């Protein structure tokens, strides 16, 4: 019984989700190999090798994996699958893209976005926008699992494990990479930040999101948004927090001008401390907030920046 974890990275920068996913994989009780695929990834492979619990790092360094296209990735994982009882990846947009393909090709179910490992075949996962937690047992001989990283801790470090190169390549020509529009930001990543401040429709426009910048600078925070703010074009799509966006669980989450729809709560209600700033005292966000401030955001955001 061995577990294969597929590392997640963005353009060669290892994502913290990988370490947290390995943390979940450790709970399965098997030896863990990690597959790192991409282009020019040797440095990242070494980083993975020193994550505690990793036995071997398998490296597929080839231009055809450069953009981690689902079709090629799934075929590569499939070629390795024979040796493993569990195949595990983070529930990032990369993992969500190729993992169900792997599951279908193996003719097994996928257990999506687990938040807890009960035993090697039983897992907890949120359903219905996190309004219920299902305990699910896999009846398949091989388990294909994606992990909600925000529910697991970072792994500690270890002396580097063995790194071995794979040279088999899979290029099925079903899809081709065209381009990427990377959101540039100096701020920490939403899913990794200790503090997140998010704006909603109440921000009124994209320019007003600047009101969050000074506060985010002082707190070292990432900036997020509600769906309404993204749909209205105030900010980029990758800032959406919620059931169908990013799931965050920082130490401090500050919701500004966000009403608190169930879909938004699904993405942030596991934060340690929640602050809500909203002018409507009946806004549902106050039901999950530890500290609520009923006020006009345009008045209090500058005050908050000054007070920090």
């Amino acid at each position: 019984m061995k577990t294969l974890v597929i590392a997640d990275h963005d353009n060669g920068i290892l994502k913290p989700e990988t370490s947290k996913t390995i943390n979940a994989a450790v709970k399965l009780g098997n030896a863990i190999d990690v597959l790192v695929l991409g282009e020019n990834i040797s440095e990242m492979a070494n980083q993975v090798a020193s994550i505690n619990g990793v036995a071997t790092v398998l490296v597929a360094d080839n231009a055809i994996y450069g953009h981690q296209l689902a079709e090629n990735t799934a075929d590569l994982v499939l070629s390795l699958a024979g040796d493993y009882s569990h195949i595990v990846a983070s529930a990032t947009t990369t993992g969500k893209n190729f993992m169900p393909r792997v599951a279908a090709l193996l003719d097994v179910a996928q257990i999506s976005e687990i938040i807890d490992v009960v035993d090697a075949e039983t897992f907890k996962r949120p359903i219905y926008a996190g309004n219920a937690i299902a305990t699910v047992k896999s009846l398949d001989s091989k388990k294909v699992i994606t992990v909600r990283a925000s529910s697991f801790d970072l792994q500690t470090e270890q002396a580097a494990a063995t790194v071995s190169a794979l040279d088999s390549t899979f290029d099925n020509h079903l899809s081709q990479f065209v381009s990427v529009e990377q959101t540039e930001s100096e701020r920490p990543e939403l899913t990794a930040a200790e503090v997140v401040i998010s704006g909603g429709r109440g921000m009124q426009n994209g320019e007003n999101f600047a009101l969050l910048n000074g506060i985010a600078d002082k707190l070292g925070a990432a900036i997020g948004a509600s769906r309404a703010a993204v749909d209205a074009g105030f900010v980029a799509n990758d800032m959406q927090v919620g059931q169908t966006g990013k799931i965050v669980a920082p130490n401090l989450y500050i919701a500004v001008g966000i009403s608190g729809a169930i879909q938004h709560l699904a993405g942030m209600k596991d934060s340690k401390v929640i602050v809500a700033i909203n002018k409507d005292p009946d806004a549902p966000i106050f039901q999950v907030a530890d500290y609520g401030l009923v006020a006009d955001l345009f008045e209090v955001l500058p005050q908050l920046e000054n007070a920090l």
Partner: protein
Amino acid sequence: MKVLVPIKRVIDYNVKARVKSDNSDVDLTNVKMAMNPFCEIAIEEAIRLKEAGTVTEVIAVTIGAKAAQEQLRTALALGADKAIHIETDEKLESLHIAKLLAKVVEKEAPELVILGKQSIDSDNNQTGQMLAALTNRGQGTFASKLDIDNAMVKVTREVDGGLQTVELKLPAVVTTDLRLNEPRYASLPNIMKAKRKPLEVIAADSLGVDLAPRTQLVSVSEPVKRSGGIIVDDVAQLVEKLKTEAKVI
């Protein structure tokens, strides 16, 4: 060009799901049901492609109990040309659904299948990718833009770091994200017209797919409740509380 749009009947997105007192599942008795919002976006995209002249036929398909025909009628009212109901009272999993859909794809040979990226009940985000794998098609998941040109479809995808564009050979599978379009409402005359559009019913167990369960639902529980918070008077008190009580800044 033919487009197949698989849709799902789910709890209405405004309704908060409740767990049954015996913890066996979520309680859906007398709960308002609707078409999964991502499926509405999929139908809308197919209809827009038809209006643009790129597509000639839009087929909606659902798998589930008889009641799901209501959502097929909605799809027809929105502009789908015909509907297929794969009827079953079993609670099927994504893999089963993908296998049944693969049978429909085999029969109807659509150049494009457009599905929602996830259903808001099981929150799995799997079916489209599985269908793509089983039919050996390329996949464009979490789409915020589609361009069809010359036996290719260009898909802009909402990814964690921004937007990624890929080009797929047709036939292909696309799953929708929220920004792909804003679905229309069905007009009353179209709702009336939909009643006369063809709706074919096929028994799920007649399609030769193994529907034996692959997972077992052990239990369903309420999530941990957050303990109640307080309303602060002003920014000064908020900052004070965050520093000395919560100790997070």
